[in-house]
């Protein structure tokens, strides 16, 4: 199943791209499991996800915890804590 994955700020810098469309295996059912799987995709991904405590996630443009289910999500984003305003 195709999943649109977005990266922002230094997560994007480390991964080396801002977005990609991936097909994680069916066993990847949560945000946390997705991070585990993404970390195996390239050295850049591994660097970006080396400390999960620094990473926030959104599923279909809603903030979620790492334990959140992906269900039929079409878009998942990973980023550091926001610093706008």
């Amino acid at each position: 199943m195709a999943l649109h994955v977005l990266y922002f700020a230094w997560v994007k810098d480390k991964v080396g791209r801002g977005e990609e469309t991936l097909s994680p295996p069916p066993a990847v059912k949560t945000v946390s499991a997705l991070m585990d799987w993404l970390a195996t995709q390239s050295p850049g991904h591994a660097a970006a996800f080396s400390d999960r405590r620094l990473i926030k996630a959104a599923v279909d443009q809603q903030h979620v915890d790492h334990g959140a289910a992906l269900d039929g999500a079409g878009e998942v984003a990973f980023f550091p804590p926001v610093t706008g305003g």
Partner: protein
Amino acid sequence: MVRVQKHAFDPGAEINAFLATVPKSGGVATFVGQVRDFKGAETVHAMTLEHYPGMAEREFAALAAEARRRWVLDGLLIIHRYGELRPPEPIVLVATAAAHRADAFAACEFLMDWLKTKAPFWKKEAFESGETWVASSADDEARAQRWK
């Protein structure tokens, strides 16, 4: 009204335009956040604001709805920029209009506090020595928690 935009805005003109929409409000509170040209002893030459298009607008709409649930407001405006900014350009403008100034003040500060921890924007500052992503602030997190 909520606007996420790349181009610069004129805070005074925006505030006047907002005031024109709320002639029956006794009080209008506003907040303008500006790009600072320093961080500690270092000079900041420019700031780049990355954002998550789509989610940024959604979060602002959710914050606006929450503010309207909590206070009696006649109007509300959020403008937030993204892209390249230079000191001391305005980054963000929040304005709230109400019959009672306490509502206007509280809603304006609430919107700023929540926006700081929820709106998907990330600041990168350009120094003489290079660019650095701004770290999130524990103080911002604590201020946002006050409104839970």
